């Protein structure tokens, strides 16, 4: 025995000779963890479907250019949207349930400003040229977006703009204190640099439209709503009455109209607010007269608050019934309204309250109660109504999508109507969403026919939609994301501390009311990184390494740069720790498949 063990006089110490790696403990497993990125709630709320969780992650890492490019894949106008978008993303942010939402729009603007300051050139994927040209009528946000995305998909896109400068409503309908002209020009220049042609001062008439149909493979109509909707009351075409949009346009063209005294602004939308706040800046007084209540106003709440801060007066539940000139003044007759039940859109239904009308005397009246298409041929073909059924000439067309309408007459050139012409919510980001959807629809039309559009697009939804992702459409990495929307309960908040949201520096009220200077000021890179660092990065892996660290079985393997993690299922016992300790639900624990 002693000889057998090689023992002489020495003490025998048995020594191990192999590792435990021959025990494939993966056979113990009945639950199977896996890496599975999911969708953040902010990104589904963003009409442009921006990959916000990833954008914030890149900002935290100081990768500003990559973050900016990540926006540009889904939205060509971050400098504009970081300023004028009503940021529904923030209203849906999971961090709200923890402390306060991430200042997503502030981050977006920061990235755009940083790129502009450094004159950064984006590097973006573009599909090989398709040899097809698309004419785009109107260079507003819808037209710009359609051109940008069609260009990405390999089309030659050419924009026709009636005005001498591009931008549409962005240039002529939004005051400079919200959107400085230089910001817009910068974004448009980048769009042109990517290969989009913009032909200025080229009005497209009905006959020119017919010509375009023959010389292009498709036409996108994004000419917006420019015709003021009439109030249909006596005196509205008299002197002293102006339309709001034309007034804003004059200002952007450099005019300094005399607005001394009191101006009444009729309406409750963003244009009404823009007009009133501009009047204040020109030294006048402004009273907004609105038929309904403040909570029913379609204007963004932050805009209403700012207007009131700046001294705009708001008079609710007053419907104009007549405007009469009296010397150089206007007498505005108003009917007091009351709320009675609810309208179909959920707002209070209003009716005259039975009292006799009141009169107010003002120096002038601005009408900003909404706009409509300037020409009837701008209007998309109506949606088919039940009972009235005409067999479509091309099967599946006209196709009414959420943000655009595709039509083709007798195998002719496909026409897409988009932007305000088709959108139910008429604002900048929805217009961008429209341009994107139109580009996808048109490309699918050319690739595989009208009958495949709905299905192809439904595969590109961000979460449950309606936002669409061009990155998904182009088979980018985002395609791997699950549509599951990460909830606050699915975040492991043990890994986050309460931190106050960035305070956006702003001009003082006195500074605001005396100039058209931009109100919101810049933030520093450090501030941006700190704010982005508050983001949970819902559903996406930010390489925090928790899964690797806490694995009791050493079976999280890492590839290049210590990223590209994967699980060694030979040994993983399925304890589930990695999934629970992943702060951001980038992993999933599922049942092990029965063998």
């Amino acid at each position, binding site marked *: 025995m002693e000889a057998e063990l090689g023992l002489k006089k020495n003490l025998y110490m*048995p*020594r*191990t*000779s*192999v*590792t*435990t*790696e*021959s*025990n*494939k*403990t993966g056979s*113990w497993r009945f639950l199977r963890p896996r890496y599975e990125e999911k969708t953040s709630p902010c990104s589904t709320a963003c009409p442009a479907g921006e990959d916000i969780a990833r954008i914030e992650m890149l900002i935290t890492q100081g990768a500003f250019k990559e973050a900016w490019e990540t926006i540009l894949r889904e939205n060509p106008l971050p400098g504009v949207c970081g300023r004028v978008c009503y940021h529904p993303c923030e209203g849906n942010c999971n961090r709200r349930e923890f402390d306060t939402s991430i200042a997503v729009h502030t981050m977006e603007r920061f990235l755009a400003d940083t790129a502009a300051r450094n004159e950064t050139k984006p590097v973006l994927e573009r599909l090989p040229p398709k040899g097809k040209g698309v004419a785009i009528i109107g260079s507003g946000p819808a037209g710009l977006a359609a051109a940008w995305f069609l260009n990405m998909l390999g089309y030659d896109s050419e924009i026709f703009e009636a005005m001498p400068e591009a931008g549409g409503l962005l240039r002529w309908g939004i005051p400079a204190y919200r959107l400085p002209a230089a910001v817009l020009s910068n974004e448009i220049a980048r769009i042109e640099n990517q290969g989009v042609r913009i032909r200025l001062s080229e009005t497209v008439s009905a006959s020119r439209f017919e010509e375009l149909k023959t010389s292009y493979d498709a036409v996108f109509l994004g000419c917006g709503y420019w015709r003021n909707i009439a109030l249909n009351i006596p005196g509205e075409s008299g002197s002293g009455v102006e339309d709001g949009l034309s007034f804003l346009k004059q200002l952007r063209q450099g005019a300094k109209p005399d607005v001394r005294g009191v101006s009444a602004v009729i309406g409750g939308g963003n244009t009404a607010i823009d007009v009133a706040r501009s009047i204040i800046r020109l030294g006048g007084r402004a009273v907004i007269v609105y038929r309904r209540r403040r909570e029913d106003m379609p204007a963004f709440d932050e805009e209403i608050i700012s207007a009131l801060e700046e001294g705009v007066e708001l008079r609710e539940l007053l419907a104009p019934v007549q405007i009469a000139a009296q010397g150089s003044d206007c007498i505005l007759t108003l009917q007091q309204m009351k709320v009675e039940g609810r309208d179909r859109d959920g707002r209070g239904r209003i009716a005259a309250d039975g009292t006799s009308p009141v009169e107010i005397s003002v120096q002038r009246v601005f009408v900003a109660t909404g706009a409509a298409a300037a020409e009837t041929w701008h209007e998309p073909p109506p949606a088919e109504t039940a009972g009235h059924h005409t067999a479509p000439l091309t099967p599946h067309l006209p196709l009414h999508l959420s943000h655009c309408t595709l039509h083709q007459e007798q195998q002719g050139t496909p026409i897409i109507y988009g932007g305000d012409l088709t959108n139910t919510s008429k604002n900048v980001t929805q217009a961008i969403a429209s341009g994107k959807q139109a580009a996808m629809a048109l490309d699918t039309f050319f690739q595989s026919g009208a009958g495949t559009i709905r299905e192809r697009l439904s595969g590109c939804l961000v979460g449950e939609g309606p936002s669409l992702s061009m990155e998904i459409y182009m088979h980018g990495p985002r395609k791997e994301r699950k549509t599951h929307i990460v909830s606050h309960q699915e975040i492991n908040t*043990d890994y986050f501390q309460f931190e106050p949201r960035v305070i956006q520096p702003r001009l003082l009220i006195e500074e605001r009311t005396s100039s058209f200077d931009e109100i919101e000021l810049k933030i520093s890179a450090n501030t941006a990184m700190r704010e982005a660092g508050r983001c949970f990065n819902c559903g996406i892996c930010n390489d*925090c*390494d*928790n899964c690797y*660290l*806490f694995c*009791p*079985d*050493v*079976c999280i393997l*890492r590839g290049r740069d*210590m990223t590209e993690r994967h699980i*060694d299922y*030979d*040994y993983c*016992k*399925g*304890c*589930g*720790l990695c*999934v*629970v*300790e992943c702060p951001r639900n980038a992993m999933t*624990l599922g049942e092990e498949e029965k063998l």
Partner: protein
Amino acid sequence: MQLDALDKELMCSGHVGCPGCGATIAMRFVLKALGEKTVMVLPACCWSVIAGPFPQSSLKIPVIHTAFETGGATASGVRAALDMKGDTETTVITWAGDGGTFDIGFQALSGAVERNEDFIYACYDNEAYMNTGIQRSSSTPYGAWTTTTTGADWKKLRKKNIVEALVAHRIPYAATANIAFPEDLIRKVKKAKAIRGSKFLHIYASCPTGWRIPSEMSIKIARMAVQTNIFPLYEVENGVNYTINYKPKEYLVREYFKLQGRFRHLKDTDLDQIQEMVNEDWGLLLRKAGEHA
């Protein structure tokens, strides 16, 4: 979490620790912090099994399996042998369970640290004799079910405060650590490695099997032990200088108890009593650290 230079792996897959075992996570962190030049002394405990049945080993460092009660004595011998060979660089660490530390190994441990032997004694605490089937130890907390404190006879005695017992020896370094706080844990191990003389580390290591908790909750519960002040993170230098490393936001202990099967029988009045005990211990610690509640 950013932990640099910890990519080296000195523990192997294929070990037979239970799914979600906190003691294996503790080992992984400790070895990452110590590095290869380490000899481990391993008295009987779950880890005797996890380290592998002969001829296997799940650890890529030399390990000496030794008798249950001899952690302190064997380490003293290994240290002496290394010193005789002129190797002062290699770290000697004893890795023992709470049974092997608080109870049966206490004499050898006390003797070794009284002599101020140059080694680290790490106790991974899973609060019972787990390897032999969940028998209570003097580390088992007040209120816990074990296979020897069953039914109405759940443990009604306090957990021994082992760190204070070691601090009473006036050793150069004694500290608590927790698997849910890897940065703190690794810093403490590195600190202990750099100090000459006896070092004691009390490492909280959850045990899904013995505590009747789901395996995926092992880290969450470990974290809560700190957040509730049940297991405060602190260190003591030379038996007198206390530093509290983490000041929790006073979570209630019932949150911690609620999650574990071993405490299921406790009533609200019991939990209130436990809360008082925890508050008292925390107050005591604050006083030692010269801080105010």
